Each structure stands twice: as C-alpha cells, then as structure tokens.
C-alpha cells in the first residue's frame, strides 16, 4: 500500500442545519493525482477551504505527512506545505506577473521581513520566478500587470503561485476552467510532471482532463463521498453516473 501524504478523516462542516461536508474521509498518496468531482454545490470547494484552514471544520482531523495539522491556522498550513489555487482567480492585481510569483517565493526564501534591500536587486528570487513563468508559459508576459492578463493567463498564474511555494501537496480548485485547448494541454503535462514531487488533489469539471490525469477519483455529492476508485471504476459506477456524469461513457 502506498504511503499517504494527506489523510483527512471524518471532516464535517455545517451552516445551521445544512451540512456542507458530511464526515468526509479522503486521502492523497505520494506520486498521485486524486481528482475530486461532483455537481456544483456538492461541497468540493468548501472541503478545499477546510483543508487549507480558511474555513474551520466542526469535527474531523487532517494529517499532513504524519503531522496533525487540524488545529493549525491557514498561514501555518501554507508554511508547512499546503499550496492551493482558488476557484475564482485570486492574484495581486496591481503586481506584474513576475512580482506575483516573487511574492509567493518570499516565505520559502525567508525574505518577508527583509526591509532595506531592494527586492528588484534580488537576482536569485527573480531568476527562480522566471523559471516558473517559463513552466506555465507566461514568461513573455512577465512584466504585464496581473489585472491586465486574460482569464486563461490568470489561471496559469494561479498555478504558478502554487508551484513557487514548492509545497508537500497541491490543492487545485478548477485550474483549467476557462482555458483553451492548448492551455489545458499545458496544464495536463505540467501536472503529470509535478505530481512526483508534490501530489495533487484536483477539483475539475473538465472530465477529459480528469480522466487523462487522475490516478484515483472521488465523487462528492451533498457533502458526502459517494465513491472512490480508479478512473475505470468510477466510469463504470452506476451511482456516479446517476449523481454526476449522467451519461454512459
């Protein structure tokens, strides 16, 4: 059995009588992409928010690399190796693309509180940022203000911000939403490449991308995991077809 780097047990969150996540148990192995699929409002993004700590869960536990992070703050979780993208692009709009990436590199390089050295003279940070921009195919647009980037480029930049943190796990929330075919292919190739260093929990509605990428797939509906398995198992699962896929594949 493969080692688990991320292990979530019985994670629940309710808003009044409404259970957004209901005793969710899910794990992420080393070297894998575990896709989380389900209809809109099923609780996928709330689960991501609970894992990163921006939404407090009611019960349950989260273990990252054998360390219980259940009671850590969102910043502490990011520091010890959880990196995410947001469902709606969340970038620093007035910063250039490269400055967004440099910001993401600050904590790892312990430069956040460096006060009297010009950040622009830090060649190492900018060189590392350039490498990441090349990986996400935004190098040519590195000096463009993030607010002026197209939707697709912002999605790429989001992934770049996550890459820059060199985390233990990635949590990607619909990273391919709104991307054209070449952008999607770029992401697929990138994710295949990076999963060996940092496994990925992937929320995605593009089923072609999910089936091309995922080693395992979990299906969530009304806040509950209704099925987990390989791509083939999920494709054959009648319950999954009923609640989400809705068609014969």
């Amino acid at each position, binding site marked *: 059995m493969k080692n688990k780097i991320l292990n979530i047990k019985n994670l629940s969150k309710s808003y009044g009588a409404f259970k957004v996540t209901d005793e969710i148990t899910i794990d992420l192995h080393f070297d894998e992409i575990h896709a989380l699929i389900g209809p809109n409002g099923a609780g996928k993004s709330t689960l991501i928010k609970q894992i990163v700590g921006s939404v407090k869960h009611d019960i349950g536990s989260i273990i990252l690399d054998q360390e219980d992070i259940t009671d850590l703050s969102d910043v502490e979780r990011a520091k010890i190796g959880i*990196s995410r993208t947001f469902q709606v692009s969340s970038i620093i709009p007035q*910063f250039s693309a490269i*400055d967004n990436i440099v910001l993401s590199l*600050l904590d790892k390089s312990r430069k956040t509180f460096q006060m009297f050295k*010009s*950040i622009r003279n830090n060649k190492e940070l900018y060189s590392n940022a350039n490498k990441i921009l090349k990986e996400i195919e935004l190098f040519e647009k590195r000096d463009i203000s993030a607010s002026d980037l197209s939707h697709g480029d912002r999605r790429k930049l989001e992934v770049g911000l996550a890459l820059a943190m060199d985390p233990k796990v990635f949590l990607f929330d619909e990273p391919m939403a709104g991307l054209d075919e070449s952008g999607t292919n770029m992401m697929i190739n990138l994710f295949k490449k990076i999963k060996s260093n940092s496994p990925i929990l992937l929320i995605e509605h593009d089923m072609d991308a999910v089936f091309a990428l995922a080693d395992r797939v979990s299906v969530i509906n009304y806040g509950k995991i209704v099925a987990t398995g390989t791509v083939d198992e999920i494709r054959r699962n009648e319950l999954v077809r009923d609640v989400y896929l809705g068609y014969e594949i």
Partner: protein
Amino acid sequence: MIVEKIFNKWILFFLFLIPVLGFIFEEPYYITLTTKVVILGIAGIGLNLALGYCGLISFGHAAFFGLGGYVTGILSFHALNSELIFSWPFVTSGSSEMLVIWPIVILSSAFLALIIGLLSLRTTGVYFIMITLAFAQMLYFFAISWPNYGGEDGLSIYMRNSLPIINTMDPLTFYFICLCWLLIVIFISAKLINSSFGMAFQAIKQNEERVKSVGIETFKVKLLVFVISGTITGLAGSLYTDLNRFISPSVLNWQMSGEIMVFVILGGIARLYGPLVGAAFFIVLEQTLGGYTENWQFWLGLILILEILYVRTGILSLFEKKFKYEK
C-alpha cells in the same frame, strides 16, 4: 512615473527655496509656515505607510502625534522647572535635549502603536477604523482631565528644546532640523516600499487572503507596518510641539486624525510625496481662504469631494505619466 519623479524633485527644491527666501526677505512667518508643512508632511508620510500602502485605514493616528507631542512637552516642562518626573521606582528627570527626547518619543510611540496594533489589527474594515478612533479619543479625554500638564488648556514649554552647538530657537535652523527628519523619513519609507517587506504589505492591501495562502504571516506584517507608521507620526508630533512650544489635547482629537488623513488623500494615497503635497495644499488653503472666511473648511470639503470624484488618486496623479508595464 517619470513626470511625478521630476515633480517630487521640484517639491524638494521649493522646500529649500521658500524658507531661504523668507530668511533673506526677513519674513520668518513663511519659514514657520513651511516648517509646519514639513512636520505635517512627516505625520502624513507615517500614516500613508499604513493607510496608503497597507490598506490599514487608521482613524487614530492623532494618538501617536499627540503622544509624541506630550512626551516632548512633559520632558521639557520638567527640565525647565527642574522637577523630577518620577522619584519611584527610579529617579527620572526631564530633559530639554532633542537628542534625549527623540529616542524617548520614538520608543514610546512605537510601544503605543504596538499595543493599539495588537488589539485593533484583529479586526478589519469599519471595526478597525472605530477601534483606532476609540484609542485616540481615550488619550484625548485622558489629556483633558490631567491637570498636572494643563488639562484642557494645554502645556506651554516657553523654550524650544536644544541640540548641541545649534541654536534651535532660530526659525531657519529649526526648519532645517525638521527638513532633515523629512528626508530621513522619505528615505526610510522609500527603502521599505521597495523591499521584500514592502512587497508583502502592498500585496496585503490588494488581496490579503492570497498573501496568507503563500505562507506570509499577514498579522505580523501589518503590525510592523502599523508600528513604523505610528512611530513616524509620533516623531512629527514631537517636532510640532517644539515648533509651537506648546501642546494641547486638541492634537489628540479625532479632527487631527482626520486632518492627517486628508493630507494623504489630497496629495495621493500610496505616493511617497503625496502627504507632503497634501499638507502643503492644506496649509495654503488655510492661509488663503482662511483670510476670507472662518468656514474655509467648507471649500476644503468641496475640493476633497471633487478630487475623489474626478482625480481619485490625489494631486500628484495629475503629474503622473505612467508608461504601461513600466516597472
């Protein structure tokens, strides 16, 4: 940005020129007026770090301005009267030496900003505005009800505090002391803004959730910015007391916080020289319109409304020529 940079150099040129002309033509009034602009500009630059660059809308910076002023006044008052401030647990006497007073002002303003910041930065938005306002008002009412140092009537110190060799009573000399502080504050602010730390706090203003998600402790960053900001404004308060040789609770009032904020908004939020330009514009309005009507603030209000509607980013933005994608 290039045009703005040239304009900034012109500002510094005029800050040298006007007092020198005042001295040559024996018009000390203009030296005093320019000194006031410089001191209020320093206070504004302090607030601009928190408000303009980090998005912390503090409505209580009068607390730091007033504290700096009162620390200066109290130390000087005791030195001139040869009285001890404390005799227990250790003997503490006053001082009229600026080189003694400034470090005490800096430390006490930083400490107050740390306390206020630790409590207020747990809130955001309108709650942050209200809690900073409440702290300043607490100090204001405390100063009013403290008879030892003049209460509502304020405290006169008669003699300006001194520096070795230099005659600080000379208006032009005192002006250049204030100008030196302004240049130091601009230098420090510019360094901060262009540093990694500056990148972090400017990012917090735009998207704090994203900054947290990349592992940056935003609370610590904001707290440090708030402390630096409060310290700079406290230093301005100290110079203001020396300029007027008088301190009263009015500098702790919410109106003072509002005026410092007006300097920032008028000149240009998140522009290094913005608060200085805003303070100059404010003083010019006060001196010109104030000669015609007591209610000159009405016109100030009108100008602020027009600026916010049509210019938004302050007077300095009128001199901006930003090239797209320019770093």
